[in-house]
């Protein structure tokens, strides 16, 4: 017997549980489908899409770091049209929310993708304005309140799906950026994207990544991410999806107590293909132990020390 209801509704995105696979760690679900039942995952934010196919960066693209990893894939993807044609039909076999993560070089590219995706069978668009691994565009929009306001309000005009704006932690005040996105029409926010980092092979005196720098993710970033989610949730009224180093239900609950309505699981999906399900089970176990019946009951229930 269970009276626990894990379902969530994030700005109209209805999910059976609050655990979403984070963009770039789950491809389009095909690889993970061999290990886990995708029906048990709340949603999937697909590999970052661009208007045209992208080859990505030269290897090496990954370096392990203490309790984390750096990556510099560089948005390798088949392009938004191929995604609609080849991947949505596959994903739609499963009962899980499809979130299309999009990245552009110019505002026009973002708008065109949002327009194309408005006719597609997806549940939401996630605006990637914070990828640290591509040289032009993308990252610049997410770095300032003005930049994020501009891109969000423009894409909003072309996007008839719930619009999630994904925030970068590589800024001075993430709360200011979050507020600007909310004011410009974002329906929800997701954070944090990876922290810009570098790892050096001291024998060769060269960075391990061919791209020199990359995005840091994994448990190493979790305390930073929890703090940022907390700050953002104090500032905005729209729902926040928290992420950054979540490997367990306990990790996820930290983000939810800090104010997140749902969570994304990224790096853990690379190590444990069934990570999303384990995280979900952990959240349920916590709710049972504390007598919470609905996921929303945890959100923002942090008690600050005085």
């Amino acid at each position, binding site marked *: 017997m269970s009276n626990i209801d894990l379902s969530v509704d994030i700005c109209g995105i209805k999910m059976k549980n609050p655990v979403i696979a984070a963009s770039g760690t789950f491809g389009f679900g095909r*690889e993970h489908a*061999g290990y886990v039942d995708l029906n048990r995952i709340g949603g999937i934010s697909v590999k970052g899409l661009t208007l045209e196919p992208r080859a*990505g960066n030269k*290897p*090496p693209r*990954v370096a392990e770091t203490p309790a984390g990893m750096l990556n510099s894939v560089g948005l*390798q993807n088949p392009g938004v049209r191929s995604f609609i044609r080849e991947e949505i039909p596959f994903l739609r076999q499963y009962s899980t929310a499809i979130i299309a993560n999009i990245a552009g070089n110019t505002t026009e590219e973002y708008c065109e993708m949002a327009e194309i995706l408005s006719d597609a069978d997806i549940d939401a668009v996630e605006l990637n304005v914070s990828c640290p691994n591509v040289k032009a565009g993308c990252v610049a929009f997410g770095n300032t309140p003005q930049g994020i306001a501009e891109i969000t309000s423009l894409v909003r005009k072309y996007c008839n799906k719930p619009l999630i704006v994904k925030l970068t932690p590589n800024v001075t005040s993430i709360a200011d950026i979050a507020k600007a996105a909310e004011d410009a029409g974002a329906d929800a926010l997701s954070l944090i994207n990876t922290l810009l980092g570098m790892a050096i092979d001291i024998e060769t005196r060269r960075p391990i990544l061919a791209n020199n720098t990359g995005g840091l993710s994994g448990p190493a970033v979790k305390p930073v991410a929890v703090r940022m989610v907390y700050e953002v949730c104090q500032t905005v009224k729209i729902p926040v999806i928290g992420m950054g180093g979540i490997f367990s239900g306990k990790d996820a609950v930290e983000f939810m107590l800090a104010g997140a309505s749902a969570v994304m699981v990224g790096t853990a999906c*690379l190590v444990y*293909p069934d990570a999303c399900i384990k995280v979900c089970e952990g959240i349920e176990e916590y709710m049972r132990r504390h007598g919470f019946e609905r996921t929303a009951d945890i959100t923002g229930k942090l008690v600050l020390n005085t």
Partner: protein
Amino acid sequence: MSKLLKEEIISVEKATEGIYRMTVASDYISANAEPGQFVNIKCCEGVQTLLRRPVSICSTDRAKGRYDLYFQVKGAGTKILAGKKSGDFIDILGPLGRSFDLDIGYRRIAVVGGGIGIFPLLFLLNESKAVVKRSYLGFRSSGYIVLQEEFRQKSNSLEIATDDGSYGMKGFVTDMLERDILSEEFDMIYACGPTPMLKKVTEIAKKHNVRCQISLEQRMGCGFGACLTCACETRTEEGGSQFVRVCADGPVFNSEDVIFQ
């Protein structure tokens, strides 16, 4: 098809300087693994070494339901693996990746291995139905030679080269391949080892118009095709190039498809 498994370690033993052999019990992997495939191991619970470590499968014993892995202790993860005991359980994903093509038509084969790249080639020799199998192995020096007897038994001939000449021929393993390639009339060359060696084997195979498959190594994230970090540049049919995944589209490639960096 690869599975997420918890498997019991039968033994961990030092094979030679810095190289360990781990025997793992698994009916599933011993029954399903093919030469060239690998397993991806979580060395410890928790985040001390976060990512899995890919290790190629060296041999399988289907009757006993076990398989052997050889690995070099290079960092924290492999050091933990070397310290595992009989009876410990480890978290394994496998078997993973594209295997060597062992077409029955390849009657005369050469296997060319360098250093820790030799291990999948022993599995290949075990499974290959070729009539003539020539093994060419290269090591830094005599202290690094491993599995010599096994390679000798599984092939018609074995020759060893060392960089310093402390055992066998002094020089590169590719020198021996180049010496024999005309007279041996190989149908297929299989190679695994350091990138400069693979590059040279590819050149030799191309020059003499012999088919060649190479197994590549690259830093991996997930090992099962999702993260796109272990990229390798290959030629496309249209004459361009693309990045493919070493873990899922490889690690074995036709040598002519690979664009070396």
